[in-house]
């Protein structure tokens, strides 16, 4: 009986897939008189799933814009696909976006490996892509006409953060704790680049595998290095683990970390308060900021998606999509990839709730790198942030 039911279910599911596929043919892919189709992939399942909030944050922005009447008489239709952080799936999703759904553009998208499998394909098919959610050089070198990066580069960020610790705060002995993947490695590159310039070296360089759950040895190594400040380039889990392990053995340096860990509410909770004192860089307004746009978004958030936590990953989905919509706004009613690109290239220090964004004609890789600013803050014992600096440029 169960067998028969399951066979029936399989057939039913498969046939609904068959019925649900659609194809569309217009002059400009993904743009009709009333609608613009856009898509994003993001891990909703698997180990990287916390990042999936970004893609849902974009969904909120799309809803807000649609509620406000769309742009130039067109509303947006947003396709969110889960790639579980597996590149093979990401590429399948990219193909689906282009060949079957026919999207106008891709917005956001988490993961370097995932994005890299899809990049060339999207570029060949002239699909505009705005704001991949990682700050690596891969997006802008070689220069891609249709790809507009936003996320401040990890490398530059680490460079600048080390400079801040060294010059402003006067730390001499700096150690690095990073996660052994593309993200962590970019951080190391930046830190080492700065220190090389100053002719000093890291007192310790400790890496953790992404799957590691025991960091006691790592903590010991950091302690034995006698570092005064430790720069941390990891994901939340490792941050919590290393703080607990170092606290255990009585090692309390000045910690500093990248904007990836700027969700201080989450971090305070999972580190049981050890997060206090952290020097953090930020790529967007603070969650409780009085910035008029933030106030507006928070109100809509309460109305449209009250179950979502107003965390940094979530509203990062807004940060990485805002410039795209600004480009659509500036491109006017005649929206094609080309007009959108020209519109994007007119952005000069345009700011939503993220860093100031500027683009220009693609002559230099940095012309396609929109976000070049971060600001620093220090986590207070109650979890709030004390802003240390204003938006400051981190690229040379």
């Amino acid at each position, binding site marked *: 009986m169960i067998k028969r039911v399951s066979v029936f279910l399989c057939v039913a599911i498969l046939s609904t897939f068959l019925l649900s596929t659609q194809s569309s043919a217009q002059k400009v892919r993904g743009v009709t008189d009333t609608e613009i189709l856009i898509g994003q992939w993001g891990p909703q399942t698997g180990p990287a799933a*916390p990042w999936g909030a970004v893609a849902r944050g974009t969904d909120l922005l799309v809803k807000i814009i649609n509620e406000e009447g769309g742009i130039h008489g067109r509303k947006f239709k947003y396709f969110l696909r889960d790639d579980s952080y597996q590149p093979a799936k990401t590429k399948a999703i990219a193909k689906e976006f282009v060949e079957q759904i026919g999207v106008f553009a891709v917005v956001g998208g988490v993961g370097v490996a995932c994005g890299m499998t899809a990049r060339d394909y999207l570029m060949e098919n002239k699909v505009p892509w705005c704001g991949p959610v990682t700050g690596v050089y891969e997006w802008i070198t070689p220069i891609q006409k249709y790809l507009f990066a936003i996320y401040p580069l990890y490398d530059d960020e680490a460079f600048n953060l080390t400079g801040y610790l060294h010059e402003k705060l006067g730390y001499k002995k700096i150690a690095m704790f990073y996660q052994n993947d593309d993200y962590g490695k970019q951080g190391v590159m930046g830190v080492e680049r700065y220190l090389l310039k100053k002719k000093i070296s890291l007192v310790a360089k400790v890496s953790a595998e992404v799957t590691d759950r*025991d960091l*006691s040895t790592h903590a*010991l190594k950091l302690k034995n290095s006698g570092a005064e400040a430790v720069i941390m380039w990891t994901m*939340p889990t490792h941050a919590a683990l290393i703080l607990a392990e170092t606290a*255990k053995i009585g090692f309390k340096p000045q910690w500093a970390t990248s904007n990836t860990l700027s969700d201080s509410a989450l971090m305070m909770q*999972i580190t*049981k308060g050890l997060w206090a004192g952290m020097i953090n860089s930020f790529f967007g307004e603070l969650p409780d900021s009085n910035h008029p746009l933030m106030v507006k978004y928070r109100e809509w958030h309460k109305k449209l998606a009250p179950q979502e936590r107003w965390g940094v990953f979530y509203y990062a989905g807004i940060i990485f999509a805002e410039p795209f919509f600004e480009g659509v706004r500036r491109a006017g009613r005649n929206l094609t990839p080309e007009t959108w690109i020209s519109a994007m290239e007119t952005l000069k220090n345009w700011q939503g709730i993220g860093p100031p964004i500027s683009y220009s004609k693609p002559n230099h890789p940095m012309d396609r790198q929109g976000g070049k600013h971060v600001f620093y803050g220090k986590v207070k014992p109650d979890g709030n942030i004390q802003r240390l600096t204003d938006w400051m440029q981190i690229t040379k």
Partner: protein
Amino acid sequence: MFGQLIVSGLAVGACYALLALAMVIIYKTSEVLNFAQGEMAMVSTFVAFTILDAYHVPFLWAASLTFLFAILLGIFFEIVFLRQAKDPTVLGLIIITLGFEMILMGFAGWKWGPDQRSFPFPVSNVETYDIGGLLISKINFWTIVISVVLMFILFLFFRYTKLGIAMRATQQNPLAARVMGIRTKWILSFTWAISSIVGAAAGMLIAALGVLDPPMMMDPLLKGFASGVLGGMTSLPGTAVGGAILGIIENLFGGYISLAFKSVVAFAIIVLVLCIKPSGLLAKHYVKKV
């Protein structure tokens, strides 16, 4: 540094040993390699978290309720899935447990979301005991104690109680066990219940050591499996020895040779050990006649 490395190696080894214990109990009675063990523990820990979060009951209450849930979960899996398999292959059984792992993983992600959480545990993960200059955090200390005590209780149980011997008998010869009047089906469910409890205990300790999120058991489970195999997969003292050896070697390797390969050195050691002693360190294995 050496002493400190040994101490933290023992502490992490105790976690591995607990998970290995849970796997070994099942392997001992039914020769199933339970890859769902980690996720069963993870879901149980989430249940504990939910109870603590929503009702603010004392921890022991929540833990007891969680153990009850773990029992039900273990028995549910045994009865609803494993028992339905008609003359399954070893591989088929592994695939069933992997499938169940996915179901649990999906369920946890669905119900509780992917965000990391901190698991409220009565013992601090930061405060330490100072034993002759070596620091050991309270939670690590209690993990070791709990592992050793559980191991000892289970060892006595399997060695001297009628039920424990019956469980071993069931694994060795299910037909003869039935002829003795042993309710083999009931024994299997019971095995899953015990193992699920041990796993849930390990899950709560591991969550308290770090953070609670759906993928938290992936690495500990593999290491637990590795320590079980190192110890001999059927031997309870073996799991303790395997866990301790693995934890210490990992830490020494990480401390003195290379942190980068710390997480895989365990597997290299296992392959070496198994080449010399194919059934693990402490297992006496009766060779079945063909």
